[in-house]
């Protein structure tokens, strides 16, 4: 194997290790949200330091790669993509940490009726599925799968857009549950962010494999419609 490929593989492996850490944060976050589990929330918050260390390490590896290998063409696009995927992964980690902080404010699990009405858990599962599929797309260099991941974000946005109205109605009927409903709305907002961040990562996979820029394209199309 070429030396440059060995370096790229090391970079990719490091990124996947970080991906697994963030996966753990998101997956535990689901249980923590469901059960108002403070202990689990603490673990998620604690993991953030480890994720940050990966972020710094990967940034450094990319910097060294640029300096020592002066990559071009597909190599250049790969490192650029790794750098951006790293940033997005770190942010997803932050988002999971943010949700954990909301969990810590809960003294009991969310009202099942509210969870059902807002489709929050459906949204959570969808976000998790996107996150995991995106990892497979990266491992297999599968741009078709990356494109499918981007499409999944629509469902998340749909749930997010409806949540305001649903929660307003719920609050009118249950004025004693304001803090709880607001926390849930915040978590929905965070999940919407996770969808966007996974979308960014999927776009980077398409960029480095196909040399095509897909980000910001859909917005333009929407304007034309």
């Amino acid at each position: 194997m070429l030396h440059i490929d060995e370096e790229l593989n090391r970079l990719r492996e490091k990124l996947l290790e970080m991906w697994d850490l963030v996966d753990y944060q998101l997956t535990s976050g689901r249980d923590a949200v469901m059960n108002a589990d403070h202990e689990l929330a603490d673990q998620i918050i604690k993991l953030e330091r480890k994720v940050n260390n990966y972020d710094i390490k990967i940034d450094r590896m990319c910097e060294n790669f640029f300096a020592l290998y002066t990559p071009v063409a597909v190599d250049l696009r790969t490192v650029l993509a790794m750098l951006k995927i790293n940033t997005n992964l770190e942010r997803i980690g932050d988002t999971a940490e943010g949700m954990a902080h909301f969990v810590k404010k809960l003294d009991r699990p969310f009202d099942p009726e509210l969870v059902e009405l807002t489709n929050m858990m459906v949204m959570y599962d969808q976000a998790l599925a996107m996150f995991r599929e995106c990892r497979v797309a990266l491992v297999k260099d599968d741009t078709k799968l990356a494109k499918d991941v981007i499409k999944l974000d629509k469902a998340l946005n749909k749930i997010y857009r409806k949540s305001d109205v649903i929660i307003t109605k719920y609050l009118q009927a249950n004025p004693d549950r304001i803090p709880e409903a607001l926390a849930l709305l915040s978590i929905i907002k965070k999940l919407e962010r996770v969808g966007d961040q996974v979308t960014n990562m999927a776009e980077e996979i398409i960029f480095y494999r196909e040399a095509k820029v897909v980000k910001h394209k859909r917005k333009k199309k929407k304007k034309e419609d």
Partner: protein
Amino acid sequence: MTKKHNKLEATNLDAFYGDFHALKNINVAMEEKAVTAFIGPSGCGKSTFLRTLNRMNDYIDGFRIQGQILLDDRDIYASNVRVDELRKEVGMVFQKPNPFPKTIFENVVYGLRIQGIKDKKVLQEACETSLRQTALWEEVKDKLDKSALALSGGQQQRLCIARALAISPSVILMDEPTSALDPISTAKIEDLIHELKQHYTIIIVTHNMQQAGRVSDHTAFFYMGELVEYAKTKTMFTSPKNERTQNYITGRFG
């Protein structure tokens, strides 16, 4: 933006060394006052192509071409073209600095002397202008009567460029002009290329990918006598269309 004029243009160009088919149906147009880089592995035909542009290959036994090379829309292989006139128009700088064993001054004005110019003042002015253009004037102005062979390699190469400029060409061909130089001298030559392209059309053959990236506006990739890909340098080094180009520039050849 108006499109720049094509200074040089090869159409359906084939070149042969005896039976060996060195260039296969090359079609390429090189923009005026821009830098075009030729890259490719050894033996790919890039230097052969460069040398067809001022008919340097004419002296090689068994060498012949088919097709056309146009300089300002005139066929340089037409029977009425005088090769010495062509070389005045299309100068050349080689891989290894090759100053003559003469003084610095005589090196620079060599071409002018051959043209029969004897006026000392004209020669002195041409010498200074050329040496200033190659950023060598300040370094050598007090030793113009010293041997050019006493200069460093980098200075010798800039002297060779000054010698090429002295006869006022419009095109300069450079065949790996920095491959024998240290990084500082290389950087100076690259800066120089950047300056010179305001007034000259420059074609450069280089094995240094980063150099092609830094100095050229367009890059042509040759492989086994074929022009595989020709595009803006930025495009070539970020998203080449052809897989062979990608493999070559990323060092994954063969």
